């Protein structure tokens, strides 16, 4: 007989009523359509992608990180010290063997595609080896995640706090993020924006359901591709020019920097005619902050400052 998970959780809660703040183990979670069971807080974690590493560091878990891989860029200044000594397993997607070599009990992937045969390993394979795996909920593809909101982002932070039995740290982190976010007043000039992520001939842009949409909304900007129910899409320059955005968000990645994008926009015979390009109305966001994670809120604060500095006639 299989005990329903909520019932099991209720029993555990009843049994461990003594430790009020402590998480209840075994902890059962549904993560991206995959059930995870944890008997105790993970002790050796592999973090894949910057968003995963940064959340763990923000919760003060650097001691438990056995290795990091596929980092999208440098850590932000406030986390740099905590993350300085971490073992880098691979600059790109690590192979399963590289991951297993450090004997992790938990692999935290920023993208669901990190868990593939060519990558860190299929999730059932890892589970059979006693290694739990966790996909950042906003990056789930097996089950379409609901539209990303800051509340859902905070829920991931809280869940990570429960997994590692550091609820107090998670609560403090969420509290701090809420406070920062509350300090941002959405722009009220009724401006539209393009979220330009990458691509040259075919621009890859932020659409209506993931971090770009969430950040633009917090800034008070209307996303020109906001009607498309996807995180990001391959759009066309024509659709961009047709919408004629007031500001352009440039994602600053090591492989495709904001400066490269500015040059491209200024040289391209069509985008060079956009008012936003002529007037250089750009907002820049570092790539690791452009995916769902702890850097979204600070990015909103920073971009709101950039946006306030832009002048619009009339």
């Amino acid at each position, binding site marked *: 007989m299989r005990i329903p998970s909520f019932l099991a959780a209720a029993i555990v809660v009843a049994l461990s009523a003594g430790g009020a703040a402590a998480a209840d183990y075994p902890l059962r979670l549904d993560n991206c359509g995959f059930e995870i069971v944890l008997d105790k807080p993970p002790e050796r974690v592999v973090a894949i992608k910057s968003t995963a590493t940064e959340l763990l560091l923000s919760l003060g878990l650097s001691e438990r990180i056995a290795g990091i891989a596929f980092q999208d860029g440098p850590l932000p200044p406030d986390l740099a010290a905590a993350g300085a000594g971490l073992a880098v397993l691979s600059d790109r997607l690590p192979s399963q063997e590289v991951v297993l070599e450090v004997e992790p009990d938990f692999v935290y992937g920023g993208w669901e595609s990190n868990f593939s045969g060519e990558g860190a390993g299929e999730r059932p394979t890892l589970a059979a080896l006693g290694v739990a795996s966790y996909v950042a909920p906003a990056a789930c593809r097996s089950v379409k995640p609901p539209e990303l909101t800051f509340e859902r982002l905070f829920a991931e932070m809280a869940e990570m706090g429960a997994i590692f039995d550091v609820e107090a740290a998670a609560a403090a982190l969420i509290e701090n993020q809420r406070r920062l976010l509350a300090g941002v007043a959405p722009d009220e000039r009724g401006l539209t924006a393009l979220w330009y992520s990458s*691509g040259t*001939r075919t621009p890859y842009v932020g659409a209506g359901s993931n971090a770009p949409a969430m950040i633009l909304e917090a800034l008070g900007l209307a996303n020109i591709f906001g009607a498309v129910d996807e995180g990001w899409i391959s759009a066309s320059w*024509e659709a961009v*020019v047709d919408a*004629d955005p007031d500001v352009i968000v440039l994602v600053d*990645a090591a492989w495709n920097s904001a400066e490269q994008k500015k040059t491209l926009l200024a040289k391209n015979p069509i985008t060079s005619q956009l008012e936003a390009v002529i007037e250089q109305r750009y907002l820049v966001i570092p790539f690791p902050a452009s995916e769902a994670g702890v850097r979204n809120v600070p990015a909103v604060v920073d971009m709101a400052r950039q946006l306030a500095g832009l002048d619009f006639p009339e």
Partner: protein
Amino acid sequence: MAGAQVRRSGSSAAAALRHFSLPALVVLLLVSATLAITFGPAEISPGEAWGVILHHLGLRPESPVSRLRDAIVWELRLPRAVAAMGVGAGLALAGTVMQALTRNPLADPYLLGLSSGAALGAVGFLLAGAALLMPLGAFLGSLAALALALLVAQLLGGATPSRAILTGICIAALASAATSFLIFWTATGDSYREILSWLMGSLGGAVWSDAGLVAASLVLCAPVILAAGRALDAFAFGDAAAASLGVEVTRLRWTLLTATALLTGVMVAVGGAIGFVGLVVPHAVRLAVGTRHRRLLPHAMLVGAIFMLWTDTAARSLFDPRELPVGIITALIGAPVFLFILLRYRRIT
């Protein structure tokens, strides 16, 4: 008397068709171009589109639409339409010539690995920092793939159609793997999308310089190929027969193969490895106008242009505001046609 009359009027109808099929295709191409540039995420009517073109040709003082909409027509849609037509014409010509020279109904720059070789050359030059020389890289790549294909054919003691295809599969696999490898290891992040546009073929982002490059390669190669129509007919009977008909077999073969490699290289440099156009178009045109190359070549060129224009228009407007690599559409059409040709020529393959 009456019978003779009927026969004459019947043959004059056929003659009219023969004489007017090319001008009819030219008209169809122009009409297609006019219509195609009215498709897209932005709503622009045919009248406005033509107004913009006339304005830029200096025949109209004011553009009928706003500055940005004017740019959508003149800087985006028109160069892309011109590039699409040129790429279609070039690939169709290349396919027709290869089918004749190799006496292989399945020959096509994509199936024989030339397109993949060209993509490898283009990406290699691009990543080496020689973006301006990229078309040269594509030409060298397609030439190398062609040379490799011919060498393997020699080693096999003469290429049957199926041997040629197997060789092509091998070359294409090798070149595609090398292209993917180059992109994976020199670039980072989400560059797989760039790989897709090279391997699947896409005309997204084509600008006037691309259209100009395509046009220049056609101006250079098309007359050479069109003038060789009669000689290509002779090739159908074998090299010895062609030589006895006064064709300088070796020289002509190399001239035409070089032209084919050049066309393929330029088309790939602009649009990536767009498949099956060089296969589908010549076969479809043969059904309508027969196998004589003096008629087949110009018809294939025009039909190729029209075909590519419409498939690219579909690629950029079917999933508005998203874009699809056009090679997906040409493959969806081309692969079944490839099967059909396999069945039709089953005795010789």
